[in-house]
Structures are given as structure tokens and as C-alpha cells.
């Protein structure tokens, strides 16, 4: 399958005082039509910078973003507008991402009007369709965001992102502001969008169990680099990178047996301003050897469809090994 969205060697850095913070370092990832890619990382991993770069919210130092084979950096005018229509985003916080003074009908109709879609009456019908699609009652259209619960607001935000029938939906921590019982509603809605409408989904989150629930493939970011990428089930069942294994074991599962299989890492993630030599993970890695402190392992094909940046892939078993 050819990639709908392809990111090649994307590097982004920010000036911080006199230094430079390398937020993304030669990241390459792709998303096929109708596929869900999960991007997992902790704070400072660069995952939100990646989303911003995709939405053209910042200028990369190097690398290309190709949409349908065309580099988006050269888009302008009508072509840029068309691209923006085809890729939409849902943010973490449904409380701050919706204009509190606008009715839901206006929030949903605005992107349609901005792209000159339909007459006023047709747009009203589209708004009703969108509300039904995300499981909100028809009379929701007349209300303000403040009259909804957090989960319902996130439905409004998803409806707004769907208004322009995008081919790619980027969801950055879409449920982390919501209660557990409500999270499941939004997760199921995203899953349905993918299965019924064939939307390609990029789910960015810190919660590996959540990402696994939604994704076909998962990529793990550490300090601005992809350290592992592969099919979601394979990556979770048998992680190749020791950081993936630790992240899996750190994901608190409501399972009384889980506690005995913990890998607790030493120390904290280093600053991207002061990246360790060699493999950036080596100071915290339970299986690091002298080589890891000297040479940076390249992200290389390890098995069918799996890539890993580690000299000793699979040596640290994940918490689910043998279960």
C-alpha cells in the first residue's frame, strides 16, 4: 500500500538560551490510507512537535513531509487550503479547544463555510449528520460548549474535525483529560471512524495500552528519535527495544499479577539539550554495554515490518513474555 502521509528524515530544533534543543532528529514515519499509527512517548519525546510539524505549525530544519506523494512544504494558495482540508486534528483539552461563545452549530458549520461548502441550508443538514455520527443528540446544535460534559465536548471537537471529510485525523492525547468511563466512549468512536469510514488515524499519546487498543502499527519516540516501530500486537507482545519493554511494564494495568513483572528504570529522561553520546537511552538502560555509550544505533529493519534502534534487540523481554 502506498503511503498517504510520509515523513522523511524530519528534524526540528528550537533555540533555548544559547543552546539548541533538538526536538526531532531525523524522524521517518508513514501512514497508509485507512491505517492507524500510534505514536507513543513521554514528555520531551517530541511527539507533540511531530504533530505541529504535520499541521505546518512550525518550520522544520530538514526533511520532507509528503502528502499523497507531494511535498507539503511547497504548497501555497489553493493547494495549501486543499491540504488543510484533507488533514484535521483533535486536541487533548476539549475545554480550551472550542470557542465558548459559539453554538455547536456554528462551531461545526464554520469550517464548511470557510471552504465554501454548501448553501446555508445544506450546511445545517451536514451539521445534523455530523452530530449523529459522533453520537450527540440533534438539539446539541443550539447549545454552547459550556453546556456539555468533557466527553461530549470531545465529541464536538471530533465532529468539527470530521466536518471537511478529512482523509487523515491526528488525535493528540484525545482522551487524557477525560474520566475512565468516558474515555472508552471516545476510544470506541475513533475506532468506528477508522473501521466504518476508512479514515487514516495518527494517535499520539503517552498511554501505550490506549494506543495499542486503536493502532495497527506503533512507533515509540525517545528524546526526538524513533527507537522502535512495528505492528501493534507484535510490538506489545515482544518488544525489541528495552525502552519499549520498560514502557510496557510501566503501564499500570488493573491486573493483580502485573506488579511482579515490573521493569523500573533508573534515573530520568535526559534533556534534549544535553543528549547523551551513543544511544540516548543508554544511561537508563538495564542492558547497556560499553558500545552503547559510544555509537548511536541506527533504526534498522529487525524483522518483517519491524524496525528498532538497538544493538541488542529483544534482549530485555517485555512484561507479557510467556503469558
Amino acid at each position, binding site marked *: 500500500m502506498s503511503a498517504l502521509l510520509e515523513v522523511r528524515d524530519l528534524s526540528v530544533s528550537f533555540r533555548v538560551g544559547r543552546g539548541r534543543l533538538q526536538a526531532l532528529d531525523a524522524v521517518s514515519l508513514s501512514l497508509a490510507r485507512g491505517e492507524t499509527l500510534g505514536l507513543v512517548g513521554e514528555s520531551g519525546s517530541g511527539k507533540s512537535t511531530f504533530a505541529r510539524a504535520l499541521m505546518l505549525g512550525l518550520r522544520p530544519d530538514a526533511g520532507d513531509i509528503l502528502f499523497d506523494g507531494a511535498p507539503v512544504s511547497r504548497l501555497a494558495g489553493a493547494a495549501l487550503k486543499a491540504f488543510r482540508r484533507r488533514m484535521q486534528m483533535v486536541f487533548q483539552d476539549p475545554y480550551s479547544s472550542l470557542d465558548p461563545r459559539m453554538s455547536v452549530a456554528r462551531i461545526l458549520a464554520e469550517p464548511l463555510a470557510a471552504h465554501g461548502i454548501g448553501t446555508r441550508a445544506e450546511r445545517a443538514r451536514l451539521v445534523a449528520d455530523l452530530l449523529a455520527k459522533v453520537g450527540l443528540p440533534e438539539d446539541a446544535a443550539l447549545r454552547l460548549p459550556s453546556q456539555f460534559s468533557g466527553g461530549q465536548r470531545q465529541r464536538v471537537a471530533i465532529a468539527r474535525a470530521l466536518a471537511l471529510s478529512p482523509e487523515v485525523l491526528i488525535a493528540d492525547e484525545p482522551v487524557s483529560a477525560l474520566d475512565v468511563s468516558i474515555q472508552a466512549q471516545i476510544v470506541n468512536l475513533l475506532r468506528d471512524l477508522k473501521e466504518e469510514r476508512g479514515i487514516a488515524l495518527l494517535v499520539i499519546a503517552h498511554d501505550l495500552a490506549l494506543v495499542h487498543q486503536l493502532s495497527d502499527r506503533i512507533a515509540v519516540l525517545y528524546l526526538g528519535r524513533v527507537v522502535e516501530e512495528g505492528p501493534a500486537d507484535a510490538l*506489545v507482545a515482544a518488544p525489541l527495544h528495552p525502552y519499549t519493554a520498560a514502557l510496557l511494564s510501566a503501564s499500570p494495568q488493573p491486573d493483580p499479577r502485573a506488579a511482579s513483572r515490573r521493569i523500573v528504570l533508573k534515573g530520568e529522561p535526559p534533556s534534549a539539550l544535553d543528549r547523551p553520546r551513543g544511544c540516548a537511552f543508554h544511561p537508563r538502560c538495564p542492558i547497556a554495554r560499553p558500545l552503547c555509550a559510544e555509537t548511536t544505533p541506527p533504526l534498522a529493519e529487525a524483522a518483517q515490518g519491524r524496525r528498532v534502534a538497538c544493538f541488542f534487540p529483544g534482549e530485555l523481554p517485555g512484561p507479557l513474555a510467556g503469558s
Partner: protein
Amino acid sequence: MSDGLELTDVAIAFGASRVVDGVSLSVPRGSVLGLVGESGSGKSMIALGCLGLVPRPGVVSGEIRIAGRNIVGLPERELRAMRGGEVGIVFQDPMTSLNPVRRIGALMTETIRRHQGVSKPEALAIAERALAEVGIPSPAARLNAYAHELSGGLRQRVMIAMALVNRPRIILADEPTTALDATIQAQILDLLRARVADAAAVLITHDLGVAATLCDRIAVIYSGRIVETGTTADILTAPRHPYTAGLLRAVPRFDPSRPRLVPIPGLPPRPDARPPGCAFAPRCPRRIARCDADRPALADGLACWNPVA
């Protein structure tokens, strides 16, 4: 009489809103209870009640016994002597609970001297030892740092060191790892597990997974009332209350078959507009006629007329 924490029929009301509506709990010394609930369930208000910190115009009734002494209605002077002394506290965000304009050493020696009555140099030595015990590298140097100069994980370690330094009988930890990254959360849970052994500890969390890693027993709270209590293993593997069972079905697991998550429909009632019977009845898949009429009391660790078989 218990030497831990004992709540008997505790209610915390703001006018007509009974945010906490008749909670009884017992946490003996040497055990960790997980108090698990979603936002608005009243779980954090219970923590404030145990500290005598319920904001005005909240009214606390019932009994909150710490090592046998009922603290409801105690004068502020005695409550202040208790907080940070007999009762250690760890909050979610150390940035808002550690005074930003004072050095870590000053914050720690103040609480040590207030509760232990030692000299300043002695207090500094105790503070340094306390930081070392929670795994803070170069503790002597950290005493001179300000909270904002530390990472989130280190700040939470400082908070835990301060909570433990006066050897409290009770430790309250309210969402202590919610603001932290997964690998740092694992470290802090490990630390708490190792360090709270002598006390009676309450971990307040929305996350059943976090409770599973740390707690001996779990109490599930819904709309200001305990709906189920039991050992961690029983709650997680054989939940009896439909709300507990619903929470467990709503959490994603690492299961290759990826069963569809089962959301709980609807929302919790407002505390001033609870239905007359069971507060969960309107959302409950096992609702029967009696659930709307009579409020089930907590008996044998369960408040339900039609429990999960």
C-alpha cells in the same frame, strides 16, 4: 481501638450538596487502601476532611479517627500540629504544594523543627537523610535548590520525603503520580511501596491500575458513597458492584484480540440531585425496580441490590 485511620459515617456538605455522603472506612497500620473514583466522586474531599482542610462553607459530620482521636471539630491549632506530623500528605502537583520562593532545606527544616523540636543543624541533618532515603542524588546540594529547579519526578520525591520525615501514622497520597510520565510513575510507586510500610496509607486515585500496583485493599467510591470494598485481587478479578465491573471493562488492556471497550453510559448525578435509591441506578446495566426505590447500604463490602454474579 484502631491505631490507623477510621472513618465512621462521614459526610461533607456544601449547602444541599452532600459531596461525601456517609462514608465509613478503616485503614489499619501497615496497610495501604486505594480509594478509587472518578472526578467529582468526593475522593479528594475525603482527603481534605482527614486533614481538617475542608474549605468554607463545607460542614463535616461523622467521625474521622486518627490513632483513636476524632479530629472532626478540633481547633485549627491542633489540626496544624497534626498535619505534616501525625499525618503526612502527598499531593498530585508538588509545584503547587511546595512554596516556590523557599529553598527545599528551609521547607523541610521548618516542618521537622515544628514537629520534632530539634535544633536547626539537627533538622538539616534529618532533612538530608530523608532526601537520601527517597533516592534523591546529592541530597546535601538539593537542600539549597528551589522546587522549580527540580524535575517533576524529583519534586515528587521531595514531597514524599517531607511527608515521611516526621514518621507519620497516616499517609494520604492524592493522585501522587498522575502528573508524571509512565517510567517516572513506576519509580514513584516503587518508592511509595517501599516507604509507607509502617503507616496506614490511603492512595487516592482515578486509576485502578495504579491502585493495583500499590494497594492491599481497594474502596470504590461513586457519587460520594463507597459502593464496594475488598482485597485488591478480589476487586480486580471478581468485582461484585456493576460500577466496579464497568470501570474494569472501560480500561484498555494489552490483549491481542482487542475486545471493544465497554463505556458506562451517561454521567454521575450532581450531589444535590442524587436519585432516591442507588446513585448509580440510572447508568446501571443490572438495575431492578428496588434500585430506584431504596438506597442500598454498604454491607459485607458491597452496596448493591443486584450484584454481578
